């Protein structure tokens, strides 16, 4: 591999190897850049609340089914499709509630799903 392809050429040690920062000029949408930064905080926090909601839902379901659960089991559990479908609807409703924008006023347009 060559420099031209951006290869590190190093052996894989495992763990974090991919960059978390994007190359290129970051867009600024608000007059005050601190507002853009606050939006990033808010979106990350909103995401983490949804993760917690899923985790709580998983806990409730496991407790209902088993009465007892293990943390390792919880960590590795991927929901079956029917549970995921319920959560997808729950998430869409959550996003709609939290992102309650002031404009445009009136009833929101129907979602433009295909």
């Amino acid at each position, binding site marked *: 591999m060559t420099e031209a392809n951006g290869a590190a050429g190093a052996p894989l040690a495992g763990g974090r190897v991919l960059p978390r920062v994007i190359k290129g000029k970051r867009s600024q949408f608000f007059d005050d850049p601190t507002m853009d930064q606050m939006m990033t905080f808010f979106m990350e926090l909103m995401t983490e609340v949804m993760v917690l909601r899923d*985790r709580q839902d998983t806990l409730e379901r496991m407790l209902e089914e088993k009465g007892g659960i293990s943390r390792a089991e919880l960590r590795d559990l991927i929901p079956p499709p029917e549970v995921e479908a319920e959560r997808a609807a729950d998430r869409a409703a959550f996003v709609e509630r939290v992102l309650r924008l002031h404009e*445009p006023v009136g009833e929101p347009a129907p979602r433009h799903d295909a």
Partner: protein
Amino acid sequence: MATNTVPDIDSLLVPTHDEFARQRAVAAIHTHAMLRLRFDCRTAYERNVKPAFEREHGRAPETGAEIAEAIKGDPFYQFYSSIRYNAQEMGPLARQPAVERALPAMIEIAKSAAQSNAAGGSLRLDPDLVVPDYMTEYDVHLAAGSYHSEFVDDDVAQGVLLGRGLSPIAGKGRITKNRNFAGVGQSIAHWLKAKYPAFAPRRMLDMATQSGANLTAYPKAFPGLEAHGIDVAAPGLRYGHAKAEFEDVAIHFSQQDAAHTDFPDGHFDLVVSSFFLHEVPVPVTHQILKEAYRLLAPGGLLVFMELPPHKACDAFMNFAYDWDTEHNNEPFYRDYRSQDPTELVVAAGFPRDSALELTIPDITSFDMDRYPAFLKGEIEAPPHGRGGWFIFGARKPG
């Protein structure tokens, strides 16, 4: 499949409960921005921005670029843009940890697939290939590392990170995305067979194939077809090759720049691509289409799925599409869309009367009972990106 010895490389991607939840949460926000806020933005524009522009200029905005300038200070636009931008950026970030955990094992599978070629495909990399500046100077689609970057030897990470998202939601629910971008190949192959029943391509090329998500449909639709896919980015080629070998589909992947390949003249009966030309400068678009013309055999077909051009959309839709130019690290997006696809193929050497431009149904979501009516022109396909795909192309005389 019985003789296949290549393991399923995707089966190694196992997010934790919370990683999976995070991926789905980010997807829910992004979907909301794309399917609701992007269209509510038109309401905000009609009610607030357009009247103010008309008062100042005595006319409505006539182009997407004029709307983009006029709408900058509108609060709804600012929040929509900020939400969409952050959700776009957060997508790959939410997928990275699972990819990193699986990376050493995935690389081993890709290496062994490249040696065994059990399905009859191949992988040809060019370590000396210089990735074009327009790919390396910024991370396209706000995905850190973009398509081409390699961080370890024999790296597949960016291919998995940005290619796995193309797979439809299915099976064990790994790394997922809402829209089925991988339906393009199936949809074009289906349309080709219906539209040109006598067309029997022997060899085809997919330009900028990434990991071949939209290539494997063609050899499945046309048995015996020899399928080639090229891209400048090696991680996706390695990953795509391992996937194709596992799926028992023979695909020949090679690392090449579509503007100048090493294939002989007239080598292919079909040249396709998807989501490609809007990512390259317009002069390179011309080079790529000339190369496609050179590579096609007499009677061969060119079919590129692309963004609809400016001429096919109203000013607001042009503004909505071209947002990506400044805010999704796709700087050639607007310039590409300002071109006329028919003029592009004519400039590349194709006869004007062979040029085609149309929107075809996405067959993974379309009610196929209605397909005959679409073919007869009685009904239109759903809009591009929402159940339909815009395609253009031409036929080489022969």
